[in-house]
Every structure is written in C-alpha cells, then in structure tokens.
C-alpha cells in the first residue's frame, strides 16, 4: 500500500510517499513554501508521484500536516505536526523519548511516553529568537552560508552572550558586538547558545529522557547540534533527512488509518 504525507510548513513544504510493503519511503521532496500553498501542495504531490512512476490513484490515503494542512485539497485527513513529528521520529528511532524540532519560523519540544504516545508538547511560534529565523539573520549579517555556520562557530575565542528577547533586538546586539571587535566565531557561537537557551526554557521541568531526536532543517546545522548536546548533556539522534520527519509521520499515520478502514 502506498500512502502519502504532506507537511506544509511556513518556510518549506515536504512530501513523503511511503510504501508499507517495504516499510520505507519511496520518495521525498522538499520545496520552499510559497504564498499559494494550495497550488504548492498539488505540485509537490505531482512531482513526487512522477519521480516514482505512480498516479494519484495509487495512493491509498493522504494525510496533510503542518501550518498549511487545511489547504491541501488532496488530503483525506489532517493531523497536527505535533502528532506527525512524534510518529515520524519514533519510526526512525523507536526508543525516542523526546523530539526537538526547530523550523524556520517555530520550534517545538514533544515528549513521548514508552508507548510512543505524545505526553506533552510545547510550541514557540511567537518569538523568532528561538527558531531558525535567527540563524538566517545571523548568517546574512556575516555573509556565511547556513550549512557553514557550525564550522565557523566551533572555536570561539571568547564567550559573549546575546540576551535580546526578540530577533530584532538581538540583531542590534550582534551589530554592537561587531563594533566592539568581537570575533565572528564568538558571535555565531553566542547566537547558537541564545537559540538553545530560549528553546529549552520552553520545556520547563519536562524530562527529556535518554533518546532525544532533533528534527527540522536546523538539525542540519552542526553548531546547533553541538550546543544543544552540551546543554542537555546527551547525544542527539538525527534522522537522515530531518526536515521530512513530520511528512514521514503523516504518511505512516495515513497507512495506519487505511489499514484500519479496510
């Protein structure tokens, strides 16, 4: 049975076609989200199907998730990104106890119990200082590619802190630090620690457990991985393509629903 998961995020949209006979993803695609999310959902589905030589009729069930989930016309149902990320992460790492997802515009911490069920979650969608957006701002200021930031921030020559409660103020702080002659490496390191601090403050007294999965585009940033690992004092588990975790979860939920309805 082929099922489909579509995750329409605020920055990127992802699709996974899942083949239950092999238990693997047949195809996945990631594209930048556009204003017309309805059209985008249709076009990434068409592309993914074309890549696999499939037709829409071959897909038994489609679940849409993410910010724009209600705009996906081909979806049979919608499920929130909280449930989908948890399911996707547990599929890749069956013992996962917590999922940290940092996307372009929001961040989430999801705690799951021993049965793989979500037991608590927190979302930050108000403060860009705890999201990938802050990394983008910092990368732009320093002219560094996002995937190179981790290398640059690896060896700071001094510890500086960014205390700004929002990206706009934090950006001013960065400019201030530059004018004081603080190195690029130290400032980018401070940016990563600032995002981490803001993110982890959401968790309150929530316990991460041993198997913490890091998903979302920011999980590909080695500097953020390093800083988060230091803060929570354990090695993070990162799926091979961390951005598609929600879409994978959605495709698997679609399979479970189809099986149940048969």
């Amino acid at each position, binding site marked *: 049975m082929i099922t489909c998961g579509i995750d329409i995020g605020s920055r990127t949209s992802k699709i996974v076609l899942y083949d239950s006979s092999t238990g693997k993803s047949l195809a996945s695609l990631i594209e930048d989200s556009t204003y017309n999310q309805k059209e985008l959902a249709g076009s990434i589905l068409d592309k993914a199907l074309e890549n696999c030589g499939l037709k829409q009729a071959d897909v038994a069930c489609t679940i849409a998730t993410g*910010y724009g989930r209600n705009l996906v016309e081909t979806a049979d149902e919608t499920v*929130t*990104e*909280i*449930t989908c990320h948890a399911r996707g992460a547990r599929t890749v790492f069956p013992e996962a106890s917590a999922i940290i997802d940092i996307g372009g515009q929001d961040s989430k911490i999801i705690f799951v119990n021993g049965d793989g069920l*979500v*037991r608590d*979650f927190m*979302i930050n969608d*108000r403060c860009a200082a705890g999201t990938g957006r802050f990394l983008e701002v910092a990368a732009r200021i320093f002219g560094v590619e996002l995937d190179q930031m981790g290398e640059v921030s690896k060896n700071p020559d001094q510890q500086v802190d960014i205390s700004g409660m929002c990206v706009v103020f934090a950006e001013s702080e960065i400019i201030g630090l530059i004018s004081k002659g603080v190195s690029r490496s130290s400032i980018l390191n401070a940016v990563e620690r600032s995002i981490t601090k803001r993110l982890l403050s959401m968790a309150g007294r929530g316990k991460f457990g041993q198997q913490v999965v890091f998903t979302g585009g920011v999980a590909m940033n080695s500097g953020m991985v390093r800083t988060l690992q230091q803060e929570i004092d354990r090695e993070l588990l990162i799926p091979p393509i961390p951005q598609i975790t929600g879409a994978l979860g959605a495709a698997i939920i679609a399979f479970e629903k189809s099986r149940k309805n048969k």
Partner: protein
Amino acid sequence: MENAMPVTESPAKIDIIEWDALYQTVSQELLSRYNYPCMIDDEIKHGLFPPSAFLSEGDTRLKVLKYDNSFAALRLWNFLLSEEDRLWEARRGGKKIFGVMKDLGTASIIPYAVKNSVGFYPDGAWWTPCIMELSAGLLDIADKMGVKEDCCPVRATLGAFVDGKRFPVPDLCIGAVGTCCDDYSAIMQRIEALGNKFIWWELPLNKYRNKPENDRQLRKLVDFVADELRAVAKAVGEVAGEEITESKLHKTIQKANNVRRIIRRIRDLAYGVSPAPIPALETLICEMVVIHFCSDIDDADPVLGGMLAQAERRAGLGWGIASEDAIKIFWVNPVADLKMMNMIEDAGARVAGSEYLISHAFNIIDENKPPFEALAEAVLADPMIGPSEDRAGMIIKEIQRYGAEGVVISQIPGASHCAYETNLIKNIIKDKLGLPTLEITAPSICDGREAGFSTRFEALCEMINERKR
C-alpha cells in the same frame, strides 16, 4: 416557558448571516415582548435584535463568532450587547449607577438592595477591544497614559473611563483592593486619580480555607470583611439616598441566589451532559452575567432561566452542539477573544468545566446567616485571594466532577497572577491527575495567531484520543 421554544428544532452553531435568516422565522408577536435597546442608524431602537444589529454599535467581532441557534441564546446576546445602552438609559432615567470593581461577584449585589440603582462591572471593558476589534481605541488610551501592554488588558477599563463613551461615569465606584491582582489595583487608582469617586474595601488574603483547625482565624476574616462590606453598603446608601438595611440586603441576596441556582444548573448541564447541550461561548457568557447581573438583576433571572430551559430540553432529548465523543476540556482563566471558545469546539473538543476566576460567584450565599456575614463568607471563597495551591485544588475537584480529559490554561498577557501561578497550577494538575495540560497566552484578538492556537487545540485532542485508544 417562551424561552424554551427553539427557533429551530436541532441545535447548531450558526454565524451572524445565518442568524439573520433564522431571525426572520421568529414571530413578530414573540419579538415584540422584548425591549432591549440597540443603536441602529444613530437612533436607539428597542426590541429583540439579531446579532448583526449590534454591528452598527461597532461590535464588529460579532461577524466572526458562531452562535447557538436558540431563541434563548438570542435573548442572552441581546441582554449582553445592550448593557451599555441600558446603562445610559438608567442614567437618563435618574438611576444611581455604581461601578463595582474587582471582587467579581459579591459586592455587586449590594447596589441592588436600593431602589433606582444599578450595579455594573466596569472591568468588563476588557472585552471591548475584542468585541470592537480594537476600534474603540481603549488600549491606545491606556498606552498613552503609560499603562502599556506589560499590564493586563483590563487596562482597557482605564481607557473606557477616559473615553467616556462606553458607559456613564458611575456615581460611585466600589473598588476592592488588597489580595487582588496588582495590575487592576493600579488601574483603579489611576481611575480614582481622574476624579472618580471611590469607596475602597479590602479583600484580605484567605489562607485558612478548608482547614478546620483555622476556624478561629477564618472567623476573624469573616468579621473583617463583613465590616468592610457594611462600609460599602453605607456609602452606597448615602449616594442612593436610601439606607441599606439588613432586611433589604437579605431580599437581594435571595434574588442573587436565584440567579446563582440557575447558573449552577446550567453549568452542570453544559459541562456534565453528553453531548453538550449548549456551546462553550454561550456558557461563558451565562457565567459572566452572574458576577454583576449584566446591570439588571431582575432580567438576569429570566434570561439565564431561558438558557437553562433550553439546555434542559436539549439534554432531555439527547441533543447537543458537539458530537458525543468530543474531547472534554477544562478551561482555566477567561479569554479576551471570545472566538477562542468557538475554536476549541472546532478542534473537536467541548468545554467541560471552567474556572474563570469567578467560581465564588456560583456559590449559594447562606440566607440563614446575617447578610453581611453571609456576603463576607462568599467573598472569602474567591479563588484569587488564597494560595494558588487552593485554587489548583478547586480546579482539580471541578475537573473530577465533570470528568474532563484535558486542561487548557489560558494566560492573560500581562496579568500578574498568570505569571505567578500558571506553572504551579499546571504542575499540580499533572502530578495529581496526570492529565494533558496545555498552556496558551491569548491576546485580545487572536486572528494573526489563529493557526497556532488551532494546532495546539487539535494536538491536545489528538493526544487525548491516542490515549483513549
């Protein structure tokens, strides 16, 4: 019971346009029995109007809400939305107007003990930025006066006093201070500084609740509050030109208790029966009516009575506005944006229990005790004037009573009590009941963040559904 008569047979939530169509089906004879004022084309008209009629008063938020489709709900909305116009009419009619502030439910009874007096709740202006979608500019006025958004949105009350368009300047404001939220205490003081006449009374800290070993201390508190309320009654009597005797107060307490008995029954049906016979939004409004009778204690009784009859009838027929398996959510703290009450239901849930900081207004006041003593005991049950652990304990009892499966704690941005106690309450609920608990911060208008709130509500429902499976 005319209010038990439904406009349509099956309960549903309908929008403002659908209400317009439904309104056309109501008999003119029935409509002509009501006399609620509404400003239409710059002229006050009286009757019973569809919600859309109040758009001309600037209540534009009504456009996005979904309403219960019963006649009883239509009357409830007219009662609520006509309050400001009724206050202006009371002023023109020579009635004395008392602004009862902060205690949320007890001191408001006192002005009704004298004739030609109206007690209202200026704090209710905190809903104006929502209902009028910020067009009244009340928060802007408060901003300009230095009471900015780091303060609770109840600062809109300050804006309303300065603006002078929302309600008439009260002949006397009755301000409760002491163990109340410091934001509002500061706002009331600013309102007094504008030249408004105040009688202040103290809400003391009650840390002796539910502890029999502290009966003696509790007794002292009751005596203290009774004396405070006597002073309030004396001041009200002086302004009204009529002494408030214990006998008059006793009769008013009986009236208030009638309203309280109705709301207790409404809550039991709305929160306890499946499917929910009336929506969360109308239930919230019914609860809010009780704290100050929406400026008319005599009409509050039949208005809520109509809602009760409607709920009883539907419950008896097994009719509801949500599906039988809707997730039962207990809601903590009121929301400024009324749309949130629709949104939680759209996510597949129903509200099954609430603690909107006004639970003490639903207790029956002891009619066998001297009235000031009885009122003092009612005041001391206020969930906000004791330790947060006590409030959490009250919430837990109510969660168990209605069998709620999850909890939403809605923080009011800038409200100091939320910052202090939200985590504490959340952790106590989790520790004692293990229920999924969602914490949100709801602004006056949630449109820009609607998708985020919907995701949270839906995720909470998914979480609870997965557990049930």
